[in-house]
């Protein structure tokens, strides 16, 4: 059991009032709030030892470099990466996926090859592959979903053959909440020689993730969704693949020896980190990892499961409310719904007037919404600091809204 009251005290933003009501923040799937240890770690660096990292021969630079690189070690152990060289800092999930598409993808995908995605991918795990497929005349395939928002695993074998060179799949859907059987997908993809990239933007913040257990080739996530700052994300990759990939962005830090006409590349992980990195944010992410580890990812996942089951039950009881996605035991803390034909923007807007922050729209998954016959949904999402009382506030506000506007 989490001591949620104590956790909430670590997040200054949660004590605000909005439009005269205590804030109910239900949009952590888009980006989470930040706890004091993260804010303090970043402020300390700025105040006490700020200097550019790498190659500075003086105390500040050495301290900052040490802090940044130790954040990498902590991230590596957080996802159980076998070596720190497999942890590359990027700006976010989107940049991590693009890195793979532009380097591994352009070196390995040829005309006629196939890339297998699923119908529930976020645009950031869709557009980079569309661009690659268009450039290389490769073919995109989609593993379909059921109307309940589960992957049609029975269709996987018929889609997977030697022509599939890459499988890119989300570990948890940011719309349906579905938690996918990634380990099984990786196993089957490897049997036909395909490389697997896992979009773990919604997974790493909310549940234990072990890249060696998954055996995935690449895994991407964002710091800002896991109590860390914006501007820092992670690409995990297997060392053998990363070694063989051409660099992504060119510039300082990613080079070894530079001649007028050519250059050689730095060692991993810096080969993929051109220019001054977001090292203050990296240190912030390290502090976020420490914070989450201190609470325990199993405990966080259990708390969110409980909250999700409760919310699913209460919301489904509202007349005219339809939650999309699978039952509680197959999903994480993301609930997207429609309510009495009221446009999601109106629902979100009116909830905001009651101090409740939810998201409305297509949540960067237009094809998925179209597949479900919807243009937009309202989405409430939970994190370690949310409570059943907040779910009650949401339900109450929806009831009131339904009474005023419902047709």
């Amino acid at each position, binding site marked *: 059991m989490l001591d949620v009251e104590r956790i909430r005290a670590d997040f200054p933003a949660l004590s605000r009032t909005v439009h005269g009501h205590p804030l109910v923040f239900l949009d952590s799937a888009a980006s989470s709030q930040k706890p004091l240890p993260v804010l303090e770690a970043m402020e300390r660096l700025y105040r006490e030892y700020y200097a550019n990292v790498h190659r500075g021969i003086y105390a500040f630079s050495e301290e900052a470099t040490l802090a940044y690189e130790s954040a990498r070690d902590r991230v590596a152990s957080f996802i159980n990466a076998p070596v720190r060289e497999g942890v590359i800092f990027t700006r976010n999930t989107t940049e991590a996926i693009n890195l793979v598409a532009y380097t591994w993808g352009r070196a390995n995908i040829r005309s006629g090859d196939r890339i297998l995605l699923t119908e529930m991918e976020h645009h950031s795990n869709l557009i980079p592959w569309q661009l690659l497929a268009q450039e290389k005349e490769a073919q995109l395939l989609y593993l379909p979903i059921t109307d309940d928002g589960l992957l049609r695993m029975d269709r996987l074998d018929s889609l997977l053959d030697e022509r599939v060179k890459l499988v890119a799949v989300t570990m948890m859907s940011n719309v349906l909440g579905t938690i996918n059987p990634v380990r099984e997908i990786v196993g089957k993809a490897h049997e036909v020689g395909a490389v697997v990239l896992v979009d773990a933007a919604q997974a790493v913040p909310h549940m234990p993730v072990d890249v060696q257990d998954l055996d995935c080739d690449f895994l991407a996530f964002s710091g800002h969704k896991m109590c860390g700052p914006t501007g820092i994300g992670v690409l995990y990759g297997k060392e053998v693949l990363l070694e063989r990939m051409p660099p992504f962005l060119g510039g300082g830090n990613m080079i070894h020896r530079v001649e007028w006409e050519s250059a050689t590349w730095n060692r991993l992980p810096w080969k993929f980190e051109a220019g001054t990195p977001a090292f203050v944010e990296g240190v912030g992410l390290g502090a976020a990892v420490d914070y989450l580890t201190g609470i325990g990812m199993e405990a966080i996942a259990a708390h969110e499961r409980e909250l999700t089951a409760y919310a699913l039950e209460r919301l489904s009881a509202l007349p005219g409310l339809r939650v999309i996605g699978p039952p509680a035991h197959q999903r994480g803390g993301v609930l997207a719904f429609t309510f009495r034909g009221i446009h999601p923007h109106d629902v979100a807007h009116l909830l905001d007037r009651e101090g409740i922050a939810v998201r409305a729209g*297509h949540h960067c998954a237009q094809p998925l919404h179209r597949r479900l016959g919807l243009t937009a949904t309202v989405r409430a999402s939970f994190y370690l600091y949310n409570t059943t009382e907040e779910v009650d506030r949401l339900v109450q506000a929806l009831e*009131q809204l339904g009474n005023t506007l419902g047709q």
Partner: protein
Amino acid sequence: MSTLYSETILDHYIHPRNWGRLSSPDIVADSDDPSCGDQVHLEIALSPDGRVAQVAFEGEGCMISMASASLFTERLQGMRVEELEALTEEDVLGWMDVPIPPNRRRCALSPLVALRAGLAAYRRGGEPKAPAQKG
């Protein structure tokens, strides 16, 4: 319940004015915003002296876009094509009786997006086309 949803907006949303299609419109206009699903279809018939004689709309979307489209059809009556072309975003926002916050301006402006596409097609003398939108 909310200062945004004024009586006027609710009234126009629940009882849209000039809903439907015209028998022979001169200007036909569509806006389609894939990011939120707001769709507005606007039809205008001009009188012989070039003024707006009849306006009708159909659409699907949030309260603000639908109320704005309904208000819009009333306000365009009697305008000349040049006046339609001179309409600004501020004009349209001004017709709403409450300030529209920045994150909902796009909803309120969807009838104007439709109108501009329709006017451009009218000037070209070609078939009206839905404008491309950023997603």
